[in-house]
């Protein structure tokens, strides 16, 4: 399995995006704050650009206006001809693609960090495309080592054969931070502060890389999706039950065949009838009810990440 090319030059064009979902408040408030006071995002060899990704949804404190922005970055949406009836987020995705991309082109930003919250008990979750993203894997490792108390879990979101659709896929390298649990529309000080610290450390890592730091090979453990499970529903499509108390809040913990996963209105338990242990994530995420997802089933696997080639140090501070 080959890895994708790692950066051979210092990363100069870096962006941090908040408010991709307008009701995920840590990123919304951080982006707004940095747009007023960007000093915190500056490093010697580059300055990260803050972006409020979905201004209309942010103003309305909703996930999206017409269409989930974080599903709008496929080539089909990005490259089809604009029409006046296009959903707000499709138009916005094209704008962001102009600003931070174009996706898969040489002109794209070097790195985009996208900030999210979840109502699920996912703690500090680092979301990258796949294990082939060597730069992103080294970044994740760095965050895990800097903050062992946070138990940062790595979730590799790309389903095999599927095109990427999320915002940070427009750049050459990207990562999403997913912090929870936090209700939509709520700004918690503890999660806000953790997000801010993590962003600073991401930028520090990029600076270390730009300055020629060596990052040796290592073994990484991560989770990748193998399926999704919807809520039990009535014929009318309403909820017939909800996540079982023994599964609720147990993101990243092993779920064995036969264990209860849903509790019906009647009190009856529905059991997991898969054949192997899975690791559920996004358990009871509010935004996924409409996507028909009560939780995402993942498998845990380990892989080797090759060393990152050392850069020649960056010549001078970025202008």
């Amino acid at each position, binding site marked *: 399995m080959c890895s994708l090319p790692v950066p051979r030059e210092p990363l100069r064009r870096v962006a941090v995006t908040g408010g991709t979902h307008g009701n995920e408040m840590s990123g919304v408030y951080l982006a707004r704050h940095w747009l007023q006071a960007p000093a915190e995002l500056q490093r010697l060899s580059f300055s990260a650009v803050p972006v409020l990704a979905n201004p209309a949804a942010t103003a309305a404190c909703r996930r999206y206006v017409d269409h989930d922005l974080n599903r709008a970055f496929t080539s089909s949406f990005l490259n089809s001809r604009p029409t006046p009836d296009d959903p707000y987020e499709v138009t916005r995705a094209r704008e962001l693609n102009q600003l931070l991309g174009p996706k898969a082109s040489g002109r794209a930003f070097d790195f985009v960090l996208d900030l999210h919250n979840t*109502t699920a008990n996912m703690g500090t979750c680092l979301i990258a495309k796949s294990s082939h993203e060597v730069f992103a894997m080294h970044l994740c490792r760095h965050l895990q080592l800097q903050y062992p108390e946070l138990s940062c879990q790595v979730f590799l979101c790309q389903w095999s054969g599927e095109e990427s659709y999320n915002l940070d896929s427009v750049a050459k390298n990207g990562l999403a931070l997913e912090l929870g649990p936090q209700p939509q529309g709520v*700004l918690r*000080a*503890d999660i806000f502060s953790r997000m801010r610290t993590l962003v600073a450390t991401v930028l520090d890592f990029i600076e270390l890389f730009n300055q020629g730091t060596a990052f040796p090979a290592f073994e990484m453990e991560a989770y990748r999706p193998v399926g999704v499970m919807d809520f039990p529903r009535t014929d009318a499509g309403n909820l017939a039950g*909800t996540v079982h108390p023994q599964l*609720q809040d147990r993101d990243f913990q092993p779920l064995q065949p036969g264990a209860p996963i849903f509790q019906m*209105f009647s009190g009856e338990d529905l059991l997991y009838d898969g054949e192997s242990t899975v690791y559920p994530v996004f358990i009871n995420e509010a935004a996924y009810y409409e996507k028909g997802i009560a939780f995402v089933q993942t498998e845990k696997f380990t892989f080797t990440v090759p060393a990152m080639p050392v850069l020649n140090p960056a010549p001078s501070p970025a202008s």
Partner: protein
Amino acid sequence: MWTDSQRKSDKKLLGEMTSCHIAEEPIKKVAIFGGTHGNELTGVFLVKHWLENGAEIQRTGLEVKPFITNPRAVKKCTRYIDCDLNRIFDLENLGKKMSEDLPYEVRRAQEIYHLFGPKDGEDSYDIIFDLHNTTSNMGCTLILEDSRNNFLIQMFHYIKTSLAPLPCYVYLIEHPSLKYATTRSIAKYPVGIEVGPQPQGVLRADILDQMRKMIKHALDFIHHFNEGKEFPPCAIEVYKIIEKVDYPRDENGEIAAVIHPNLQDQDWKPLHPGDPMFLTLDGKTMPLGGDCTVYPVFVNEAAYYEKKEAFAKTTKLMLNAKSICCSVH
């Protein structure tokens, strides 16, 4: 001066020489409202299921009607369509001339008023339970609108005792300017049931279980009351609203400080002058001023950002209820 029902009670009191201080009419009609806020899912779920299978909420001799109050907001899984349904059951809104131009919730309020009200009307509902969730760490909460309502104080005492050791708090919103015109206020006995923390748009099994138990005990109380049980004088601890506190904001009206980590999730716990209250985005702590200890509630409720309420200050006090029994026994 005296209402019809008070005169009736007094007659029964003197005529039957009961040991009970207040004799009340039996409860005939009870409503359980869900979906007053369309994204507070526990009530939505319970009411939808009880509409299919209401066995759990039936009690002999009692009509219990589950009802979805804001179906359009429920369908969109949003708090409201045009305006907050739980703030507009005042005379002005209820009296507006019906028209398509009225906000959806105002039209809906009038429909609900005609179906379940008016207060003290012949066919009106005696008790309305309105089911809510909050993102705040408030646990099981009962909301009381009138400090002199003996019947409800007795009911709340019964519910609290039955739930113990699970805590159940009583929030008294009786206040000349802060009181609001709730959906349930059209009934003689309005009961707010609020359980949290639960994010908007999420249905948690543990929260569902708690709300279900609260309703069960409430209906059991009504049933015992109707069967003639006398409830001796009692007292309950309540938290009475004093003041609402907004987030510190900047010159553009944007929030400039967050609920401090020491206050986050600490609903019902004492907050003393000098204790941390807010944390600015620059990392400065803003303490509680004044010289009174308060008991914060609705700390960091998502829906209250737009109402400019970071939390509500309450004071703790005891409310007493006289003994009550049903007048037909």
